[in-house]
């Protein structure tokens, strides 16, 4: 008899369920399978009604974030072999409403992300004939780590502040704001500050640090937020002491 492993998956069908409930599935065990492979096996062979998001299967698209034994993880990044001998409990990402089964409602994050203007903002639009914006490897190195974010939302599921304060902009969006603020080609720091340096921005963060611990791409959003706090404080003092000066 070949090996098997048991998964307890949280199910919620808005058409029929008043609240979520766990459903147990037994799937074949393979050393090289990840949790996402097990879910795909369920979908293909056991229960086609199971809903979950996924796309690349290689920790690039950021779609398959879920709670695996209470820890936010990418389904494609969590090997069954690390859970051998125990039941694997799978739930939708914490701190988000459940749309259906493992699918969460991401609307609030999308609004927060767009509110920090995560794109290069120029002072004056530059005509094409003036050529490309040059950047040295040193200037790239300053922010490159923060470009690795795949918006998988594991950091939001790990952060208790996002659960306790709906309006908190949150780790990934603030890390991306920091990424553009540090970019030598960008001039949008003051525009982003309206959201980033507000109460709902960096100051809602109490440096739990969980976001950085669970980040599968080592973006370290907690570091980005603390650095932004320092920089925002310096800007505030400068504005206080030197009114009218450009930051």
């Amino acid at each position, binding site marked *: 008899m070949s090996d098997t492993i048991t998964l307890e998956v949280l199910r919620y069908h808005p058409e029929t369920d008043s609240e*979520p409930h766990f459903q147990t599935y037994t799937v074949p065990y393979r050393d090289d399978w990840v949790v996402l492979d097990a879910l795909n096996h369920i979908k293909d062979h056991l229960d086609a009604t199971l809903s979950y998001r996924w796309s690349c299967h290689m920790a690039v698209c950021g779609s398959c974030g879920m709670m695996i034994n209470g820890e936010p993880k990418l389904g494609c990044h969590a090997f069954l072999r690390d859970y051998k001998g125990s039941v694997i409990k799978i739930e939708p990402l914490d701190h988000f*409403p459940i749309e259906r089964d493992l699918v969460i409602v991401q609307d609030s994050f999308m609004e927060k992300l767009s509110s920090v203007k995560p794109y290069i903002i120029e002072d004056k639009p530059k005509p094409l004939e003036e050529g490309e914006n040059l950047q040295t490897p040193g200037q790239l190195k300053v922010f490159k780590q923060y470009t690795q974010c795949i918006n998988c939302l594991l950091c939001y599921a790990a952060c208790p502040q996002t659960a306790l304060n709906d309006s908190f902009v949150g780790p990934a969006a603030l890390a991306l704001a920091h990424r553009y603020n540090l970019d030598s080609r960008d001039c949008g720091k003051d525009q982003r500050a309206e959201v980033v340096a507000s109460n709902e921005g960096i100051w809602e963060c109490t440096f739990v640090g969980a976001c950085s611990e669970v980040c599968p791409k080592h973006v370290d959003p907690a570091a980005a937020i603390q650095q932004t706090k320092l920089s925002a404080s310096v800007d505030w003092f400068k504005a206080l002491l030197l009114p009218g000066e450009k930051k």
Partner: protein
Amino acid sequence: MSRRPYVRQIERSWWLSRRRYFVYMMREATCLFIALYSALLTDGLLRLSQGPEAWDSYVAAISSTPGVLFQLVCLGFAAFHSVTWFAVTPKAMPLVVKGEPVPPKAIIGAHFALWAVVSLIVFIAAGI
């Protein structure tokens, strides 16, 4: 088909659910003990201003067994706060020297070294 998203409530005991949350709450709780110790020191200043008798009774109170125990508990929380804070300083204040980032261990080590030097100065000044 209408949407009916299900919102899960966060439990009051969320901070007991994972070790990292518990350690965080302990770090936050240290502020209570630091505030209490600050109140004790402020009371000391007040007693000092009230003359030798008031000062002597203050010294007797903080030298008693409960007084010493209280100060040891405060010291423990203050040390926990400092150590956890030192551990995260490389995130909040990353240093770049000659274009290369300073290793986090060096930044943390520098904080411990500075702590030791300041403590030594305090011990010497206090005549211990």
